[in-house]
């Protein structure tokens, strides 16, 4: 540490001592002609024919000292047309630069600690997406907005029915040995957010994507997997006005667009034949009308029932007293859209207002936003309101105070369980009756027996009717009326997040400034869950699946703060042919987390009294306290020579509280260089050509309390006053330490023909070694896992971005942007001594495919029970035609090989803009539990239809039906037989042969289309009041162009290795009006 400080001090001295005097000073401001972009930092201002020059500062201001003989100033900036301005004796020269290209590289790159720089000198891939590119289709989630637009990103979305879910971003494949949950880092104006859910999209100026260690070393351990750096808008002068107002108002309507393919031939129940009902004494009088009529098995929640041929039958609701349907029959007809009909239309209102004011030495931008969502599932909704203030104030000429405050308040209502057997998709796709009419379900939502049982489609069969215990018949066997369920369950999450910073920046001398910053992020959260005891009164076996239906109340509180105290010294200087930028700083971090939770157990003493003390059994309590600290010091610098040769370095040292005390110091570093060869070549067609190379290494720290291990907790429940304790299941290697992600990358950037064609290509190669990971070990050791430094993962890939502007005419322009990432390999080279593979995620127990990491194979293999096959891959069958289990089948990796997107944008007659965003991925696998149970239950399309003899597979084998099965026999020879459909599909589960339920992640999707119209405010005489107005209509998920999987949207799989009951894909259409005053 001492050495480092010495270095900082020396650095400063060297800089100061080189100051010397010149003859003439020209100052000015460089702004962008692109609406809303304002001043441009990092523009190169150079005296033509010399190496004398300067860069504009963060406010676009420059000051350049020139020889009196100087004639012309050249203003250049990547993505902007270079402009030459005669000096002609002027002391102030203000310049506006035109955009040369719609693409990724228009704006400055922001790195950690707010350090900005021109992309021309960047040594690693640093992609920037401007706010307006993100909001062509108005989004509430930044991850969603980035999909397809950045090379090397894979966005794993979630169904829009699952409100508040932001999905997940993978940068350059996955990191570490886990399921990849540690993900990327989100940094907003220098503040690290724990997720991306609390952002106002209308406040975002731009997003810089630092893909890995060669770019993100300044962020230390936390940035090991790359970082997404978000810069919010600040107040800007535009068109000579000192004040501005911008209003955005939008609405979005959503509905289901993809559900699994169901069979629509057979009704509910487990038996093929309708059952005749015979009235008997003791049964309700109103049932006499049904005597001699037929019903299908209601209690079995499968659809192996009778063929739906329009025949008369007794529907589930006829048995309940007191409705116009009591004692009536209906026709048994297919209901192909019943699952789809359940979901309503979701509506999202998205409004924001922002005020800006700029004055001499002072600027402020304040915004208020609100997102209000009515979900597609009954009773679900989300309300988010926020306000943000960003301001700076020059206390003196050299001392500037800055403050940045963001407050988000969110309330989420409703139940969003998308796991196995949840009360919407968990039924529709897993256990359901294909003959159910969802509109009838909705109509009869409030149907209740005199004994207080809410009516269910899944009640029992009349044979169990007992007049002394009518619940036994009327109550749901496993399921409720879905609409009633969402009435009787209520979950509320309220959260308040406050984040931001205050800072003081002191300009010591020109080019040298010191800044101190205090940052804080505070997150308070309250959660409540209520399950009505009515559920218990209306179900016979439901409490066995979900004990909460006995009546349940849970509440959580959490308090979380993250504080940073930072210092930063910044220095920039031009010395002859060299330009130097340097920063040195420290960052002290403190994290505090407190969490309390309690819930009732075994129901309530007093019905529907939601209180912890009303618990039948001793309530469950949880009490968590966690603390973490790190302290960091860093230096970074870059030097350029004549603006075509660049060198760059970063060193950061962290001391972590979570690491073993005697070796808690870890160092991150990166080095790189770039060479702009086009400046030397002077080729006409080549505007810009650059090669770059960089290397970075980031060690990773450990999780809180993982060292030294062997922490014994006390069980909260006692056995007659005797407390219990279990031995911790994790071994910790006493030599555990931080470990290393190393990355090298090489890039090429080219722009041709007046920058109408731009190409960026980056090859990267990353190695993760000695990962501190808790590896599953054979439990026979006495422990389930061991935390140790282990393993080696090697990754290589190619990130490509292509920008074209094929047309650029006043009345028509076309911009084309394509990204392509190829994950050439991500191999598990080594796990640990003696460990060949281990499991990281199971969707359903140990038999079905689970996600494992296996030595010598690609990261994230789906592994588990499949069909045993001979050397030629032909399944081996029993004599009865059942597949034989092979417990160790590798189905492939969960990672796609190729990901990317294509954006087309057309400007027509200046006023219209049409944009379309396509994204895609190829390769990768997932396991569908819904499909497994849906097939077991006879719901999926494959369980119906005809066999190769043209006879329904559900017909008895003796009548020519059955599934045709061929393969080789256990003792050789061939097996060629027909198996009864229900046996065939049940056996897939019984024999642990899950091949049919493994899907491909490949897809091509038209993700977004928008049409925007700039209202000509001047023409309609409104320019006095309005500066600009844009109205747009857009759609999300309009078209899944290609997908190998026809049942789910592969871009929205709920878990890394598959899904267990996920919600359907959602399509939205919306409109937005943006007005600036």
């Amino acid at each position, binding site marked *: 540490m001492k050495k480092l400080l010495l270095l900082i001090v020396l650095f400063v001295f060297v800089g100061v001592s080189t100051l010397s005097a010149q003859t003439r000073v020209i100052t000015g401001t460089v702004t962008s002609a692109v609406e809303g972009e304002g001043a441009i930092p990092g523009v190169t201002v150079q005296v033509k024919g010399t190496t004398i020059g300067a860069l504009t500062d963060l406010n676009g201001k420059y000051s350049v000292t020139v020889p009196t003989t100087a004639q012309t100033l050249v203003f250049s900036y990547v993505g902007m047309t270079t402009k030459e301005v005669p000096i002609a004796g002027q002391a102030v020269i203000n310049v506006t630069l035109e955009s040369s290209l719609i693409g990724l590289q228009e704006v400055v790159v922001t790195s950690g600690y707010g350090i900005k720089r021109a992309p021309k000198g960047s040594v690693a891939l640093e992609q920037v997406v401007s706010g307006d590119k993100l909001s062509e289709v108005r989004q509430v989630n930044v991850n969603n907005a980035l999909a397809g637009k950045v090379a090397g990103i894979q966005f794993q979305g979630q169904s829009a029915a699952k409100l508040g879910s932001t999905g997940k971003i993978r940068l350059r494949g996955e990191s570490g040995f886990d399921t990849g949950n540690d993900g990327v880092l989100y940094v907003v104006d220098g503040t690290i957010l724990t997720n991306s859910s609390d952002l106002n999209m209308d406040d975002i100026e731009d997003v810089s994507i630092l893909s890995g260690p060669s770019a993100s070393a300044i962020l230390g351990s936390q940035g090991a997997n790359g970082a997404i750096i978000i810069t919010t808008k600040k107040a800007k002068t535009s068109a000579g006005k000192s004040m501005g107002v911008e209003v955005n108002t939008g609405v979005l309507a959503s509905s289901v667009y993809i559900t699994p393919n169901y069979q629509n031939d057979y009704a509910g129940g487990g038996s093929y034949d309708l059952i005749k009902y015979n009235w008997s004494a003791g049964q309700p009088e109103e049932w006499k009308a049904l005597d001699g009529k037929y019903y299908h098995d209601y209690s079995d929640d*499968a659809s192996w029932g009778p063929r739906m041929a329009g025949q008369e039958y007794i529907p589930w609701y006829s048995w309940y007293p007191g409705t116009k349907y009591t004692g009536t029959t209906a026709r048994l007809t297919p209901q192909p859209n019943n699952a789809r009909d359940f979901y309503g239309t979701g509506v999202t209102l998205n409004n924001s207002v922002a005020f800006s004011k700029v004055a001499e030495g002072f600027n402020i931008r304040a915004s208020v936003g609100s997102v209000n969502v009515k979900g597609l599932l009954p009773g679900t909704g989300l309300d988010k309101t926020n306000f943000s203030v960003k301001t700076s104030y020059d206390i003196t000429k050299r001392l500037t105070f800055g403050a940045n405050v963001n407050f988000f308040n969110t309330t989420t209502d409703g139940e969003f369980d998308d796991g196995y057997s949840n009360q919407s998709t968990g039924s529709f796709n897993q256990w359901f009756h294909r003959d159910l009419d969802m509109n009838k379900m909705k109509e009869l939502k409030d149907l209740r027996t005199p004994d207080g049982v809410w009516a269910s489609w899944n009640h029992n069969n009349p044979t169990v009717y007992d007049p002394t215990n009518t619940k*036994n018949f009327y109550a749901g066997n496993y399921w409720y009326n879905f609409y009633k369920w969402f009435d009787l369950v209520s979950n509320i999450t309220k959260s308040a997040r406050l984040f931001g910073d205050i800072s003081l920046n002191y300009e010591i001398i020109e080019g040298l400034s010191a800044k101190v910053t205090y940052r804080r992020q505070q997150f308070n959260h309250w959660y409540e869950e209520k399950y009505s005891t009515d559920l218990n009164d209306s179900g016979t*076996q439901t409490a066995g699946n979900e004990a909460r239906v006995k009546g349940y109340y849970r509440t959580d509180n959490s308090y979380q703060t993250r504080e940073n105290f930072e210092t930063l010294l910044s220095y920039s200087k031009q010395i002859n042919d060299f330009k130097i930028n340097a920063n040195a700083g420290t960052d002290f971090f403190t994290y505090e987390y407190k969490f309390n939770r309690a819930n009732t157990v075994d129901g309530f003493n007093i019905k529907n009294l939601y209180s912890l003390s009303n618990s039948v059994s001793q309530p469950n309590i949880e009490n968590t306290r966690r603390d973490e600290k790190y302290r960091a010091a860093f230096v970074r610098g870059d030097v350029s020579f004549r603006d075509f040769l660049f060198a760059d370095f970063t060193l950061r040292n962290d001391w972590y509280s979570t690491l073993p005390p005697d070796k808690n110091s870890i160092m991150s570093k990166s080095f790189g260089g770039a060479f702009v060869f086009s400046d030397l070549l002077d080729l006409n067609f080549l505007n810009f050509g650059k090669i770059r190379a960089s290397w970075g290494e980031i060690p990773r720290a450990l999780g809180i309390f993982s060292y030294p291990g062997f922490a014994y*907790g006390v069980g909260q429940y006692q056995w007659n006053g005797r407390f*219990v304790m279990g031995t911790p*299941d994790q071994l910790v290697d006493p030599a555990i330490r931080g470990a290393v992600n190393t990355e090298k990358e090489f890039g090429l950037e080219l722009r041709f023909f007046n920058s109408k064609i731009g190409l960026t290509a980056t090859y990267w190669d990353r190695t993760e070694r000695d990962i501190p990971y808790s590896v599953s070990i054979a439990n026979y050791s006495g422990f389930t896992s061991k935390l140790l430094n282990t393993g080696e993962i090697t990754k290589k890939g190619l990130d490509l971005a292509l920008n074209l502007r094929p047309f650029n005419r006043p009345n028509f322009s076309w911009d084309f942007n394509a990204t392509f990432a190829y994950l050439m390999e991500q191999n598990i080279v080594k796990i640990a001594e003696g460990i060949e593979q281990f499991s990281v995620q199971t969707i359903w127990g*140990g038999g079905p495919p689970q996600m494992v990491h296996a030595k010598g194979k690609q990261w994230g293999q789906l592994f588990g029970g499949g069909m045993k096959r001979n050397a030629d891959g032909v399944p081996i069958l029993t004599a009865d035609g059942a597949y034989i289990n092979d417990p160790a089948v590798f189905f492939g990796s969960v990672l796609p090989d190729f990901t990317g997107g294509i954006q087309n944008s057309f400007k027509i007659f200046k006023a219209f803009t049409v944009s379309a965003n396509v994204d895609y991925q190829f390769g990768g696998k997932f396991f569908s539990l819904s499909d497994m149970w849906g097939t077991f239950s006879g719901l999926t399309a494959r369980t119906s239809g005809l066999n190769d003899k043209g006879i329904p597979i559900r017909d008895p084998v003796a009548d020519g039906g059955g599934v045709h099965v061929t393969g080789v026999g256990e003792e050789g020879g061939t097996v060629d037989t027909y198996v009864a459909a229900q046996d065939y599909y*049940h056996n897939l589960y019984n024999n642990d042969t899950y091949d049919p339920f493994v899907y491909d992640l490949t897809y091509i999707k038209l993700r977004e289309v928008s049409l925007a119209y700039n209202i000509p405010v001047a023409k309609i005489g409104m320019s006095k009041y309005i500066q600009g107005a844009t109205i747009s209509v857009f759609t999300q998920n309009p078209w899944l162009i290609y997908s190998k999987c026809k049942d789910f949207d592969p871009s929205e799989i709920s878990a890394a290795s598959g899904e267990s009951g996920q919600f359907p894909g959602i399509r939205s259409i919306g409109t937005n009006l943006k007005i600036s005053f």
Partner: protein
Amino acid sequence: MKKTFYTILTFAAAVVLIAGCSKLEDFGDTNVNPAATSSPNTAALLTNVLSDVGGTNYAAHRGAALYCQYFSETQYPDFSCYSLNQASPAGVYAGYLYDLENIIITNTDEATKDIAALNGSNNNQIAIARILKAYLYWTLTDRWGDIPYSDALKGDPNVTYDTQEAIYKDLIKELTESVAQLAAGGAVLKGDIVYAGDVAKWKKFANSLRMLMALRLSKQYPGASDYAATEFKAALTNAAGHISSNADNFKISFVGGANATFQNPFYRMYDGRKDYGESATMTTILGSLGNDYRQSVFGATGNGAATNLGVPYGRKREFIDPWCGANPTYAYVFAPAYRTKESPVYVIHASALLLARAEAADRGWTSETANTQALYESGIKASFAMWGLSEPDAAYFTNGAVALPNAFGTGANLPFIALQQWIAFYPDGIQGWSNWRRTGVPTLTPALDATNSPKVIPRRYVYGTADYSLTAEGIAAAVSRLTGGDKMDSKVWWDK
């Protein structure tokens, strides 16, 4: 310029000051979990293990109870149709077996043994941990056969799978030594929720386990001077005695009440679900024995009325789900009074030991041959008494299906004695199924709708998929020793 220089100095000094004051690398106790301790309490570890010995992985295990047809599945009959059951025994090692190992370590380690002795003498705690380890291992090897043993629980995941023969012999040795290690006196043993620290009863329990384990080897070692008979006799004649009266039963008396974690597993079996019923096999056999009113305990309808209607065994869902719907008075496992939240679960009981002695006597293994009839009758009576029922009348014992028709000393009465063992072990499937594999009694018809390939009753559990990935070498050796490979119908060592 000078001013600037001083400003920089001041700033640099401030940085040094901040850095220096708080010693960058010193974080005090930031990383210490305030809710945990670093040293275990051996009494709490013991309670933790005992709290689950009556649970669904041991004395109330459901899978084996389906294989020996104590229970039938009512709506999802996959297990009882012999679907592939890829469970792994490994979880028990990281859980309770290591807790027991930890008791031994903490009572042995010089650094911790004195503190541990506050919970009872080091020797007694160690001996009890060894006895319970033997019981847990026994329930595992009977299901899977060869399992990791000699180098398990040592923190090293590279384990070998020991042969069942080696495991059995070592378990018997452990039990023998434990009986000798247990001594009265010292601090009161804490955490013992079964025998409340009564050392004499633990000795009886250990001897009982040794007798039952020895008897399990009767196929391998049938002779009166073979290993099994020798060990059986040695345990029988050990001065510390064995469980011969219900007062000494090893049972778990659940706390129940307002404590949701420690409730009787059969209460929980029906707490919201009805996946199981008493098997028709059991009701039929009990019905064939004359007046065997243990049925009033073993099963009743959902609302508690008496019934003899067992659930048909091993039928596919297409059949059984509608059957249960049409026959709502089928028998649930246990009458409600025997599956309350607080009902006890019997792990090892007098009836099992008396019937074991009757069998050994009938085989001519012991010097009790003359007593065979008396042992047999008292074994049956102990079973009735354990369930709180009055003794069966004399007619019960003369019923043709109960009375022992053959001369004693040759093992010819085994079909009768083993049938009573099968009934007495109800609902403990691990015992019931193991005993059936050993004796072939009762004659069980395999599931009518079996889905496994040879359609026979499984004779072992197959290893889990994780075993293949985490102990590849060890398991390969174990599988190579199995005739027929890692299949459900391959036989464990003692099953021959």
